[in-house]
């Protein structure tokens, strides 16, 4: 695939992520923060998000496996995940977190477990998509091109 085709593919892919609600305007904000001084800013922040989210999802799994669930603890973790996903523009993950917090408030274990499954699913989706997008960007850069806005 030549450079122009790659660039076009990237733009289309990125646009689809917004259309499908995987990303929102906050992700655009992140991209706008990147500059020549910090050319890897977006990748760095997103990588932090991946690490942090995986840690939180593990904590949530453990917390919800307990005989007596500590909903305050569960809520605290979901609050963190909601915050991070919101900050990077991972809209679908954020939305599940909102529902998740409601179930925490109601002390509804079933509801929480359902949300945990959903949030793991949404997280996995957005992770895959962002990684694909970064790969495309890398291909463009390696071919000597620049990333279209």
């Amino acid at each position, binding site marked *: 695939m030549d450079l122009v085709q790659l660039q076009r593919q990237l733009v289309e892919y990125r646009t689809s992520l917004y259309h499908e609600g995987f990303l929102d305007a*906050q992700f655009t*904000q*992140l991209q*706008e*923060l990147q*500059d020549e001084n*910090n050319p890897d*800013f977006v990748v*760095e*922040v997103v990588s*932090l*998000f991946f690490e*942090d989210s995986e840690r939180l999802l593990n904590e949530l799994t453990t917390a919800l496996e307990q005989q007596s669930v500590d909903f305050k603890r569960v809520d*605290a973790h979901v*609050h*963190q995940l*909601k*915050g*991070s996903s*919101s*900050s*990077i*523009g991972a809209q679908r993950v954020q939305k599940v977190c909102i529902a998740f917090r409601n179930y925490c408030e109601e002390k509804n274990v079933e509801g929480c477990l359902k949300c945990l499954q959903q949030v793991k699913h949404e997280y996995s989706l957005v992770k895959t998509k962002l990684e694909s997008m970064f790969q495309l960007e890398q291909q463009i850069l390696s071919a000597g091109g620049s990333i279209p806005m």
Partner: protein
Amino acid sequence: MGGGGGGGDSSEDTAVELGDEPHVLAVDDNLIDRKLVEKLLKNSSCKVTTAENALRALDYLGLGNETLEGTVSKVNLIITDYCMPGMTGYELLKKIKESSVLKEVPVVIMSSENIPTRISQCLEEGAKMFMLKPLKQSDVKQLKWHLMKCRN
């Protein structure tokens, strides 16, 4: 604690003059948010120091249990998240306002939740501004402009 730029000059007061690089202390327990706010502030020509909770922030400011209070503030602005484990941003705000050295330092509270009672509580306690997360570049630009305007 994360540092960005030197913490060197202390000035007689906390006035931010045009041309100066304000030194901001950013407090947030969320790693991603800390990284973001740091970048946003640096893009607005601020020196940034970050702290992951209120206690670390207080230690840095010289208000911790083991530290002796200094005579001048190291920072020109403190921006803190509201919801933090242990001490909240609101409690941190109160501690800062109780300090003779630091009470003039503007404090901005951030939160992902738009709760009017929370907002008025913070403003009544002396917070300069309340900002909703996620922060955008335009928010920080407005903040800096507001901060400088107040000092002139």
